[in-house]
């Protein structure tokens, strides 16, 4: 396939490494542990990472390390999350090796001609704790570290910011709109999260900046002392003809701030959206139709055969708690 059509990011690591878990309908990656389904997350106070010393055209190893470090700083700067990272040094170790090191580096994967980068994990199957996570950037593409971006290259820091979201345990967000390309790919019309699975394209650097959905996801997984008490949660259930809807993308929109934060409904139709600014929210429910379903969650049982629906009440996110659960009834297409 043409390189020009390549634009899909996926967090395939759970599948690649054959872990028993799968991505469940939630913005966090989860795993089936011996004690039930758990989100995967780091449990060490400061995560050490290494930079592979391989270079690619136009990028030195030090430039690569600097861009990755700045992407880490972006996540460390989330004011409501408690996350810390430490650069441990350069290494000849390569990503996706089970070597006890969390390595970021380039690798040529011509067979993954739509994948800009991917993240792998080794996870404690009892606790869900991440033991090791590697990130690779596909060297078959041209990369840039130019501050304003290079129209012919993908922005390394933007893609790194996305992959570090996975590195933390975040899944893909479905806040975005796309349209099919004639060649079979999808073109992004708009993206509301760094964790949207498809890149905005070459030369675009906007994904260096986290969006409310990214901040809410990271904060929910690594909350600081005030996150739970200062923000609110909206809970509810999506139903179609009386049956629960799995995999509906439920967006909470704050008409005061303009922020969009979302999550998917579970197999029983329930959803939970955390990290909301207290106040009334518009609730929009949509099927997954802007990327492959398996970019977001386990496809089995996901219902995409319903219309976009706005709930007819404003739902208030309380301070430091959860809203009363409510049912959103959607209609078949």
């Amino acid at each position, binding site marked *: 396939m043409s390189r020009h059509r390549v634009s899909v990011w996926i967090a395939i690591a759970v599948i690649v490494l054959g872990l028993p878990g799968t991505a469940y309908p939630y913005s966090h990656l989860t795993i089936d542990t011996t004690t039930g389904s758990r989100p995967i997350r780091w449990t060490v106070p400061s995560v050490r990472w290494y930079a592979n010393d391989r270079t690619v055209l136009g990028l030195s190893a030090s430039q690569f390390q600097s861009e990755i470090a700045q992407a880490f700083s972006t996540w460390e700067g989330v004011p409501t999350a408690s996350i810390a990272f430490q650069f441990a040094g350069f290494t000849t170790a390569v990503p996706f090796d089970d070597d006890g090191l969390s390595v970021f580096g380039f690798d040529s994967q011509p067979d993954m001609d739509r994948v800009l980068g991917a993240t792998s994990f080794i996870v404690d199957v009892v606790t869900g704790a991440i033991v090791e996570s590697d990130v690779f950037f596909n060297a078959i593409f041209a990369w840039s570290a130019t501050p304003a971006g290079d129209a012919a290259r993908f922005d390394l820091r933007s893609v790194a910011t996305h992959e570090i979201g996975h590195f933390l345990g975040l899944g893909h967000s479905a806040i975005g709109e796309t349209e099919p390309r004639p060649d079979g790919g999808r073109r992004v019309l*708009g993206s*509301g999260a760094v964790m949207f699975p498809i890149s905005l394209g070459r030369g675009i650097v906007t994904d260096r900046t986290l969006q409310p959905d990214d901040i809410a996801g990271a904060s929910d997984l690594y909350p600081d002392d005030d996150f739970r008490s200062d923000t609110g949660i909206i809970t509810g259930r999506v139903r179609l003809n009386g049956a629960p809807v799995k995999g509906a993308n439920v967006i909470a929109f704050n008409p*005061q701030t303009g922020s*969009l934060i979302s999550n998917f409904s579970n197999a029983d139709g329930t959803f939970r959206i955390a990290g909301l600014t207290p106040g*009334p929210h*518009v609730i929009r429910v949509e099927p997954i139709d802007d990327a492959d379903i398996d970019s977001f969650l386990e496809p089995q049982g996901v219902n995409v055969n319903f219309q976009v629906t706005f709930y007819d*009440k404003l739902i208030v996110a309380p301070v430091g708690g959860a809203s*009363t659960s409510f049912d959103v009834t959607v209609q078949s297409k």
Partner: protein
Amino acid sequence: MSPRIVPLVLITLGVLTLEVASAAAQTTSEPVGRFEVAVGAGWLGGASLGEQPADLRSASATPFQLFDTDTDLGSSGTFEARVGFALTRIFGIEGRAAISNPELSTVITNDVEAPGTFTAVESIDQYVFDGGIVVRFGAWDGLGLTPFATAGLGYVRQLHEEHELVEEGHLFYVGGGVTHTMFSRPQGLIRAASLRADVRLNVFSVELDEDNRPQGSVTGSLVLTF
């Protein structure tokens, strides 16, 4: 206090003071009674909380709009209780508690996937506790009406539907109206009874809407003077 509001209040009070100087020259007698108690009902106007698009980032400098919203706080009935104390026949102070139940509504339009217009609503319980000065002018002969002006400030408490969120704020107000005395007497527990009509401009500043929000109100009340 908002810079936009301060001059309005001060100028109003200044005008009132000038009026009072001439009115005070007309009479120096004591008020019929010192204490007033009133209950009333009326209407509190609505306010626009503004438009807010749900914008997504795009590959260009122009955001991609997922949908658009326009939020309004609706008008509603209001009930109030008021107590007053006449400092002189002209000047008084008063405090008021009022409750209203406005509806907050957001109209959603231009969704990229869902044609049509949608409306999401919620009900708010709004409590206002305010206080200020009242200045009474000379009666309009023949009409049986006595005009007055008021100004003051207060505290606002809003409880969202199902009381899951409390938002607080403050308000400033200026207004005026007329009273019509139904009876008055120099002796007895109740010295006078009158009807009072108020028109006010309330400027709310509540967490729900970070900007100052002007809302008019009209109320009528029964006043008993002791």
